């Protein structure tokens, strides 16, 4: 959905692929590899001769920054710029072995806040690029409000982050700005600190960068720092997000790009992945996030907005400790899709009994549908009940239903009859009952 972070390696690969189009006056060697362990790096050295010939830099590529401060950038063995292939390979194996603690905020060099712990699984390895601080620059672009904003600075790396307000030039462009307007404004606003002799090149690079950001449908694109030595460019560190809704028209431009889960976030469960895959195949919408698999209250709510108000109401009445999942189905899913979705939830909620021996609660909620056929979607839920009735009874599940919309009378009647027939505990309400009132009923008992 919308903006998704991509790996640094993929960001560089995308820019490298279109380099000559956006940066015809510059060269970029695109010497970078991504590996998961040391032996993979040694294997890559067979094709990429530079890995064996040049001093290297290695760092994790896991969507988090402040890698230097976390001690996760390898650029020296004995002294800066002496990292060999062997050293890089063994360092990667060492860092990939066991969970690593990563801090996300620092006060100076002192970490603040709680670290996250997770495995490091992806690393980028690149040549060590000797350069002076004066050759480092900062550039990024993103959308703020209605405009695209380009951020430029003559200083890159930590410097810019710590002195943002003084050191960064911000240029806002409306979405309808023409290439000429953009070029003109950038040329006129090159940061004053850029050396006079480099101003023209800096502007050229910035114009190409912003054009790439726009045309390649990046939602966020940052190079911090990039090194400019005459016409030679090095991209030392990159952060990028893509607007994945543009994926259908960018498949050629982006190539095979990965949207990894952020470091420290639990990986998606097989059930969440299965729902995600089903969602991608249908014009309807199926969403599932498992919050606490052992918790007591499960929701199967129709509609993006309604699902949120149910979650809000549960949090209001019971707090979030009892809320097992968040999700929604909408946009007129077929009976089969609804059955699959319901079975996924019923399977998850009937794996364990409640630790305190209470009944579990299943909220089958929804607002008054505009066009989804309620009876049809409920048929899918009923079919799932039939599969899971025994398990549901074993664990103890109390079902609360509230729904309106096309064919709702039949839907409510059918689900009540089916539950009664299967011996399931159910209460059924229609549009005369306030949409989230079943949450109150369920939790006040």
């Amino acid at each position, binding site marked *: 959905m919308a903006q998704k972070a991509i790996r640094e390696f993929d960001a560089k690969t995308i820019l490298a692929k279109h380099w000559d189009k956006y940066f015809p006056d510059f060269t970029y060697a695109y010497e970078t590899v991504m590996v998961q362990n040391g032996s993979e790096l040694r294997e890559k050295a067979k094709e990429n001769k530079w890995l064996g010939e040049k001093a290297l830099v290695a760092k994790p590529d896991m969507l988090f920054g402040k890698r230097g401060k976390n001690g996760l950038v390898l650029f020296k063995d004995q002294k800066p710029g002496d990292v060999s292939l062997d050293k890089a390979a063994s360092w990667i194996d060492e860092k990939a072995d066991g969970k690593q603690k990563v801090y996300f905020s620092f006060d100076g060099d002192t970490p603040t806040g709680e670290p996250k712990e997770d495995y490091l699984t992806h690393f980028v390895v690149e040549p060590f690029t000797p350069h002076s601080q004066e050759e480092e620059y900062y550039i990024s672009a993103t959308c703020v409000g209605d405009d695209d904003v380009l951020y430029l600075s003559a200083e890159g790396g930590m410097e810019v982050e710590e002195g943002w307000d003084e050191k960064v030039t911000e240029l806002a462009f*409306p979405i309808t700005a023409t290439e000429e307007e953009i070029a003109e404004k950038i040329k006129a606003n090159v940061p004053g600190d850029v050396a006079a002799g480099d101003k023209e090149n800096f502007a050229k690079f910035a114009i190409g960068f912003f054009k790439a950001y726009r045309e390649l449908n990046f939602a966020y694109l940052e190079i911090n720092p990039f090194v400019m030595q005459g016409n030679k460019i090095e991209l030392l560190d990159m952060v990028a997000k893509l607007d994945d809704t543009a994926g259908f028209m960018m498949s050629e431009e982006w190539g095979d790009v990965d949207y990894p889960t952020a470091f420290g976030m639990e990986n998606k469960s097989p059930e969440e992945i299965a729902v995600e895959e089903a969602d991608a195949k249908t014009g309807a919408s199926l969403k599932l996030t498992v919050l606490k698999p052992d918790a007591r209250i499960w929701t199967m709510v129709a509609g993006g907005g309604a699902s949120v108000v149910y979650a809000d*109401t549960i949090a209001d009445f019971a707090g979030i400790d009892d809320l097992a999942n968040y999700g929604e189905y909408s946009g007129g899913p077929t009976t089969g899709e609804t059955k699959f979705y319901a079975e996924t939830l019923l399977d998850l909620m009937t794996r364990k009994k409640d630790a305190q021996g209470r009944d579990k609660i299943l909220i089958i909620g929804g607002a008054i549908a*505009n066009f989804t056929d309620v009876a049809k979607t409920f048929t899918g839920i009923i079919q799932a009940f039939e599969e899971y009735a025994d398990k549901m009874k074993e664990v103890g599940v109390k079902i609360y239903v509230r729904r309106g919309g096309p064919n709702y009378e039949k839907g409510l009647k059918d689900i009540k009859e089916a539950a009664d027939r299967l011996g399931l505990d159910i209460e059924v309400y229609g549009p005369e009952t306030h949409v989230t009132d079943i949450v109150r009923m369920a939790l006040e008992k």
Partner: protein
Amino acid sequence: MAQLFTRDTQAIFWNNNKTAIQRMLDYDYTIKREKPSVAAIVAPTSNNKFEKFFYGADEIMIPLYKTTEEAAAAQPQADVLLNFASFRTAYSVTMDALAMDQFKTIMITAEGIPERLARKMNQTARDKNVTVIGPATVGGIVPGAFKIANVGGTIENIVNSKLHRAGSCGLVTRSGGLFNELSNIISINADGIAEGVAIGGDRFVGSVFIDNLLRMEENPNVKYMLLLGEVGGIEEYKVIEAIKSGKITKPVIAWCIGTIAKHYDSGVQFGHAGASANADRETAEAKNKAMAEAGIYVPESFNDLPNKIKEVYEKLKAEGTITEIEEPELNTVPKVRRSKNFICTISDDRGDEATYAGHPISSVATPDTGKSIGDVVSLLWFKKEYPKWATDFIETVMKTVADHGPAVSGAHNAKVTARAGKSVVESLVTGLLTIGPRFGGAIDGAAQYFKYADDNDMSPKEFLGYMKKQGVPIPGIGHRIKSLKNPDLRVTGLMDYAKEHFPSTPLLDYARTVEALTTSKKENLILNVDGTIGILMVDMWRALGYSEEEIDEFIESGTLNAFFIVGRSIGFIGHILDEKRLAMPMYRHPFDDILYDVEKAEKL
């Protein structure tokens, strides 16, 4: 414009989404609109010209067009576009529509349009002062006037939720599902809504909360407003600003959903794409708090929202701002409806007197009406009352082609059949069945090719070259014996009539230049009577204001031949009656007029 839609608003519906359109028409019928709210449908891949829909128990036809341009040109009064294209094409459909300057409101239903495209589309619309509802929305409604597509769901729910007539609340939500729910809540706790819009769930939508609320502030039917926001974004703050600066003075009730999001990391996406807080002030809690501080009526929770609505409504009622609403009379959409198998758009025999295209027969039949057979043709064939010069021309054509002697193949066939003892109708059809590309068909061909040449600005020389390449002799050129020196007086008569009575004769003028060239090669290659009729018919339709496409359609459907068929039937019947009168015996062709050349069949 204080009100988004009126009872006269008509839309062009992009994509033949039959269920949604039927729901609009059911709504129209229920609230007794004069005209259906959908004027046309754009169906790019359909070859049909219309789609049938129920209007109450009856059916109506809504025209289909392949492009928005065509639909807009045919329905210039339609100023709303309901864009139901997919996320892949919704952008280009909207941009094309914006370029036309016909639409005041464009609703876009697709979810997940690429963000840059959505932004560009929304900005272009803003620059042109066009209201965009969506993307990723179910739409909006002005109860009692106009309803977009599926808003409100089924007609039963619409009446239950009092969406069939204007109440006093202005409703704005992000979510489409909750829009419907809130309509219901408002109908239970207050008197329904006066206008409502679901702005859409994507991050970048066209009209935002403030745009809609400012319009509702100006709408005298709206007495108070209800805003249902979401976690994420800062749009609610614009509303707070408008209240502080006095731009909004009517009471506002508001709630932001997504208060749960504070408990989780940003990794959990609650609700819509637009619903993700990037800063503290974008959280639902912060926005609810800020709105309450600005004097907006904010409930304790979503569950408490109905009570808040009731409270504000009762207060305004007590103050006299809101008065009791008189419930309008409604039509009831029948539960069982049967689709009709046949359609008739030219005549009607259900009333007191049968009509030809709306004209009672008696009003065109007798001499005192001053109407001729040409008038009847114009009514029944073209559903229009043609001016006298045109109906006179039609009649002239029919008279001119009525007969051409017994030797032509059609008349000959009719005579042979009559002599076999067959009836008038049987004999007539054998004659008529001869009419086609070689007999009578030159009228069609002449119209078709000369128009093609003229449309493509071919010089007479180029036209001749083109026809040679096609390997077709030019239809309508050439006569057995007549020439420029010895003209066909039928042709002269038609041309003289046209010159005198037609407003102009561009195609005939062109054809004469072609004739000048052909007759310079051979004397008898003149514009013949078939050619003259075909060409003048095109000139007649042009002068009557038909589009080139419509005229092409007449030619393709064989309308020109129809004039010949009707005219020549008079002659055929004459020949048949002649045979009957003469009581001629069975005809047998003489042996000596046939070349017999029969070989014995080989055995294979």
